[in-house]
């Protein structure tokens, strides 16, 4: 077996850290349990440094081509590790003050992130499956971490049942792929094998693809596998909801991108209409249900569903034309990353408010401009960015998708663009509901909110990043050039 240890360093560091956290926790006195967080944070940062050393080092292949570290993988690894820094930062106070089992939580969280980091490198069905489960399984536990609260128990159970069900369907799909390709599990070789599949196996192949897509559709909360998300997010501790909404769903997209653009690219004529329907249904359901929400985490959950719909749209834009595929791929990746930043920011702001208002109704944001000005301005920027209105980075994210849709042409591209446009306009209504509370209403308790410094820092940095992306979007727009994956596509 060829193993490139340098390429695997980020994973090794992360795995070592999470074991260390588990062991150290046993020896920490109750009052010092929070020490697991800085420990984990140090590991994540070290892992991030390891990723940085791999930039520009070319494509590194391990385990017989099943585990690839290329620019695509590094980009996502970097993103996940930065997300980990953010989630850890907003977790510290929340878990310390909430009386949770802190050591276990940080262990589970890091395990999930290990799965995330593995995902973009996994170019093999089995590895993809392991990565996906590594992300999900700790998630089931973390969702139920507020043990005293029935809602949290519901969150965990719902997440678990739907998660396991869809995983089972996905595994079944994978086994069918294994069968029809005559024993292939590597994505690239699946593509080759599927290219000249006998006619009588065609239908079976399509069924297999469909089943595999289901597993990921659950992960990214696409319609009709979306209904766990609002309940689970609401019941979970807020930092866990942030993790689920950002890291876990982006991990799902990272896996999906590899599957569809590498393994199943040849069958795009079959799955493009499916993704078109999925995307339209997902964004429409997300947006329209979001209109009625009165609780912020549920609002963010439905907004996340809608945003997943926008990202799924880039899959529906695949054609035989490599240039247009590259645009669609780049638009998808760019949107995912921008979405990650603004959503993390929004959740961080929510964590800040949750200390005073644990129920987290949207009305609890009233007067935030006075009680927590930095958080209020940041949250307003995130909401406007999620709505895709300048002067924010979210604008470019949407523009790139529109552009890819028009470039694809035909009747499907512009039609999808129009649906997305109408959806974007609808979304403005509920996104603006939050700034409306913060800037137009007065708080009942007008004293300054005490916001943990780490949370304020996260919100401030995310705000600056979102505005900076608006002014200088070039680095984000350039993602097309590193979309090495689609080189293998149709």
């Amino acid at each position, binding site marked *: 077996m060829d193993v490139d240890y340098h390429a695997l360093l980020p994973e090794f560091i992360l795995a070592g850290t999470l074991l260390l956290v588990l062991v150290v926790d046993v020896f920490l006195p109750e009052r010092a349990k929070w020490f697991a967080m800085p420990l984990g944070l140090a590991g994540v940062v070290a892992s991030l440094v390891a990723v940085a050393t791999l930039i520009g080092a070319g494509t590194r292949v391990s385990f017989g081509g099943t585990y690839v570290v290329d620019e695509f993988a590094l980009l996502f690894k970097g993103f996940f590790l930065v997300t980990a820094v953010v989630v850890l930062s907003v977790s510290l106070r929340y878990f310390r003050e909430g009386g949770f089992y802190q050591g276990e939580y940080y262990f589970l969280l890091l395990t999930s992130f290990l799965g995330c980091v593995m995902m973009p490198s996994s170019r093999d069905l089995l590895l993809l499956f392991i990565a996906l489960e590594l992300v999900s399984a700790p998630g089931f536990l973390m969702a139920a971490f507020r043990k005293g609260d029935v809602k949290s128990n519901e969150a965990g159970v719902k997440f678990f049942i739907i998660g396991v069900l869809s995983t089972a369907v996905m595994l079944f799909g994978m086994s069918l792929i294994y069968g029809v390709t005559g024993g292939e599990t590597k994505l690239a070789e699946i593509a080759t094998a599927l290219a000249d599949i006998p006619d009588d196996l065609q239908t079976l192949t399509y069924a297999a693809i469909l089943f595999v897509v289901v597993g990921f559709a659950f992960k990214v909360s696409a319609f009709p596998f979306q209904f766990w998300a609002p309940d689970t997010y609401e019941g979970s501790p807020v930092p866990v909801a942030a993790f689920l909404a950002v890291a876990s769903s982006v991990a799902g997209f990272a896996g999906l991108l590899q599957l569809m653009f590498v393994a199943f690219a040849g069958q795009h004529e079959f799955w493009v209409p499916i993704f078109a329907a999925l995307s339209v249904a997902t964004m429409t359901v997300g947006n329209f249900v979001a209109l009625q929400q009165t609780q912020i985490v549920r609002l963010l959950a439905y907004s996340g569903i809608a945003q997943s719909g926008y990202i799924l749209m880039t899959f529906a834009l695949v054609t035989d034309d490599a240039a247009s595929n590259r645009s669609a791929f780049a638009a998808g990746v760019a949107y995912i990353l921008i979405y990650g930043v603004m959503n993390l920011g929004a959740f961080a702001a929510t964590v800040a408010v949750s200390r005073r208002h644990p129920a987290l109704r949207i009305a609890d944001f009233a007067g935030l401009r006075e009680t927590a000005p930095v958080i209020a301005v940041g949250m307003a920027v995130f909401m406007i960015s999620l709505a895709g209105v300048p002067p924010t980075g979210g604008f470019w994210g949407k523009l790139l998708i529109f552009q890819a849709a028009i470039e694809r042409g035909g009747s499907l591209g512009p039609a999808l663009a129009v649906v997305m446009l109408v959806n974007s306009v609808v979304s403005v209504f509920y996104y603006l509901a939050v700034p409306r509370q913060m800037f137009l209403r007065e708080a009942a308790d007008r004293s300054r909110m005490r916001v943990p410094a780490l949370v304020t820092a996260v919100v401030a940095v995310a705000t600056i990043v979102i505005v900076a992306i608006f002014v200088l979007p*070039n680095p984000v727009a350039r993602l097309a050039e590193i979309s090495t994956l689609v080189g293998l596509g149709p």
Partner: protein
Amino acid sequence: MTWENSAITITTLLPVAGAIVIALMPKDKERAIRGLGIVVSGVAFALAVAIAVGFDYGTDGLQYELDLNWIGAIGVRYHVGIDGISLPLYVLTFLLSFLCAIYTWRFVPDPGRTRAFLALMLLLETGMAGTFIAFDLILFFVFWEMVLVPMYFLIAIWGSANREYASIKFFLYTLFGSIFMLLGFLAMYFQGPDPHTFDMVALRDFGAGGGFSQTFQLIVFGGVALGFAVKVPMWPFHTWLPDAHTEAPTIGSVLLAGIMLKMGTYGFVRIAIPFLPYGAEKYAPWIGALAAIAIVYAALACLAQKDLKRLIAFSSVGHMGFVMLGIATLTEIGIQAAIFGMVAHGVITGMLFFCVGSIYDRYHTREIAKIGGGMLQTMPKLGSVFAFVAIASLGLPGLAGFWGEIMALLSSFNPNEVFLGDQVGLFRLFMVMGGIGTVLTAGYFLWMLQRVNMGTLPDHWREAGLRDVLAVEWVSWAPLLALILVLGLYPRLVFGITDEAVSGLMTLLGS
């Protein structure tokens, strides 16, 4: 970097820099905050005047041009410049913003929060000014959308009773329109010259030369025109306007009416018509029809208004109808009339909203019946100013409102022969409707003056201590009052600027 290529960038972005500084100032330095608002917008206005002074009025084409790579990966450039069509609107933007800042020295609407108020106003200024100088479609769109957020907050926080409804309606309505415009832009990018470009000069030359297919033009013109039409607003897309104007704080209404509406008509002249001439030709009768309806409809609606501010708001729909009628004729006179009409409407209606703001400040009501007449008795100066501006607005010869309307009517007598040769009868009908509209307009303005200015003062206002025009009001109004007179007596002040650019545009269209 020289003055030549950086002037408009500096001028346009200066308000944003000012907004950031103001936002970071300590809250209790109220005077300093207001003073800085005046200084920033004043310097920006001075720079804009300097640009106008250095402008070469003898040629068509872009001046003060700067073309930089912005987002290489998707072909978006930072291309700005200014020509005879942009210049009057560009300078007007800075003038009105400056006057609004002066007005704010005395009048900050409830609930105060001057820092945020001025910062948003300056942000708005950059968005509006940027729209008039952008020569890259995406850059244009960015500036176009940048006005939404500040204006939303200006209405939503500092507006009157029904502000939340009005602000969200404004936001959603304009966003809905502009998003179809964006689709049109993207379509032009991919169907345009090879290599693909968003550059407005290249696309204009390509489109005016018949580069886009006829079917394509018909579809895309529809999308692009929808975005502009909502902003203008053309009847029947106008319903956001009375709400937004009525609920907005005074300077919000001034900037909305004075400049933001012009972004829509400017879009027609700058983008829709030259890029898609065949689409323009086919849509022109429809645009003309909607414009004629708008003129009559708005006048009738004004007759029925009880709220003074709402009346002025509806009158904007009618005036913009004249502007659109001029554009729809696709003639040189018509487009000249349109640009003149935009400037005149910006000055006059901006001033009318200032007046209404001050009337509200005295009476604390905008209902005509409650004001009850007799304003000339208690506040002779305010009453006279109001009468002067209202008469200018109804199009009295010798004042600014006259030229744009009369030339729009004139041009619809003889619409463009090449494009609209078979529609002459129709356009003459529009002319007649416009004529009826002017009569009705005179009617409702005079009736308004009769109810507000004339008559005897109701007793309960006698003791109310109504104060006539204040010094700060004179300062912020004097330039507009002077302009109303000067533009009326010497219309070449605008035509002299636009002449070359408009005839260049007509040459490009081949007529």
